[in-house]
């Protein structure tokens, strides 16, 4: 129990609250890297998932869909730490080789959930939208995307949480952020530092989780909310 008290005391030392190794700076770093990786993930995966889900007809579309779902499930087997160490050993400890594995691991959940969300939209809804004279793009953006939103948000949440926790692991290969406390504390055998970092990472993950719950509650159309919450 002493170790826990040390960790709690660690938070109240003034050294922890200023300078480049202070909590505000490390937190900002963590948010910056995570935000960057998340933005890249969304830009890559979201449009692709929307378009692939929308193109349901034809053999090519179904083959691509099969590939997306299968590939994404396979990506779960990739060990995070392995990708990070490989990227850094092959290149350098720059930002790009570290962010690359974060993006690689975050793309699959966004892609699969967006793809299936759009693909599973009731065909009747689609027909009705087309019957009202909507173009393909309008059907996608005004009908399919909003209906698929709960599933898309789940994919985004999974990706965001994964990025936040992987960014902590990436401290092992030199990334800044909250993971620095964990890794440096382990190296210097200062348990209080390590535990402080771990608690901060957990709090950040919960904050992300909370943000997405709030988002799901406000962004999803009221007509869909019942099914979204179940």
């Amino acid at each position, binding site marked *: *129990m*002493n*170790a*826990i008290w040390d960790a709690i005391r660690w938070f109240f030392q003034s050294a922890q609250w200023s300078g480049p190794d202070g909590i505000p700076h490390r937190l900002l770093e963590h948010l910056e890297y995570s935000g960057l990786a998340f933005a890249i993930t969304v830009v890559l995966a979201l449009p692709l998932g929307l378009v692939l889900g929308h193109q349901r007809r034809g053999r090519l579309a179904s083959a691509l*869909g*099969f590939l997306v*779902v299968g590939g994404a*499930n*396979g990506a*779960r*087997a*990739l*060990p*995070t*730490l*392995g*990708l*990070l*160490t*490989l*990227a*850094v*050993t*092959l*290149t350098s400890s720059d930002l790009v*080789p570290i962010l*690359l594995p974060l993006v690689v691991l975050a793309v699959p*959940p966004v892609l*699969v*959930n967006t*793809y*299936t969300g759009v693909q*599973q939209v009731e065909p009747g809804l689609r027909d009705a939208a087309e019957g009202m004279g909507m173009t393909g793009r309008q059907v996608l953006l005004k009908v399919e995307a909003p209906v698929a939103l709960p*599933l898309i948000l*789940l*994919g985004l949440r*999974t990706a965001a*949480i994964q990025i*936040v*926790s992987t960014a*902590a*692991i990436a401290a*092992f*290969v030199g990334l800044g952020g909250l*993971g620095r406390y*964990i*890794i440096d504390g*382990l190296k210097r055998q200062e*348990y209080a530092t*390590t*535990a402080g*970092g*771990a*608690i901060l*990472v*957990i709090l950040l*993950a*919960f904050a*992300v*989780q909370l943000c997405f719950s709030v988002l799901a509650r406000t962004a999803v159309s009221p007509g869909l909310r019942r099914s979204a919450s179940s």
Partner: protein
Amino acid sequence: MSRAALLAAADGEPLIRWDWIGRNLDEIGSLLRDHLIMSIVPVVLGLAVALPAGLACAQWRRLYAPVTAVTSALYALPAIAVFIVLIPFTGLTRTTVMIPLTLYTLSVLIPSVVDGLRSVPEHVRLSAVAMGYGPARRLATVELPIALPVVMSGLRIATVSNISLVSVGALLGQGGLGMLFTDGANRDFTTPIIVGIVLSVALALVADALLLLVQWLLTPWSRAGRGRGARAERRAAAAGHADAAPVEEAAL
């Protein structure tokens, strides 16, 4: 990355040094065994807890909302952080690595057990009641078998994820194949890292295939229709399978 790999090769340092693998086979084998133990034990423990918990949630519906809140919180917990928090209690041991993985397994499996049991059509349940099945027999011979595919897809996700997560334990010195990653990074040497990734992915794929095989063996009715209708049925099953995975993702 491939350009960098080429550069590394041009450096005279090959991407993989096969002789290193040959010299370290014993070490790699024992890491593989550790890895297997640390990833499978949590799945077994998780299943042992998730089955009764899922049954309880399906039985008493009011229980499900709080239980989901807990499991989704568990799912959000970063494994590395939980390892650290556990150190004062369980030290730098395998147990420290296996506890968060068990929690993670629970967070995946409880929803899939509940979803599986809910996927039993009401008329099937009522038919069993009408045929005089009591609750226990109905559960064992009707409801659980129908729930099996959904439970199995959750089990596959948990198993594959655990196998890839174990390696994070290497940061504490207990990571199975993950030890090859930290070792390679510390020595700036790619061979162990590549060996670790390949073996870890292979282990996950083999485990996944075995679970699929188990499911195939346990659900003989799903392949009962042979001959003319079989192809259409297979196609339907494949479509169902493609759907099942993301739904599980959603359950997370």
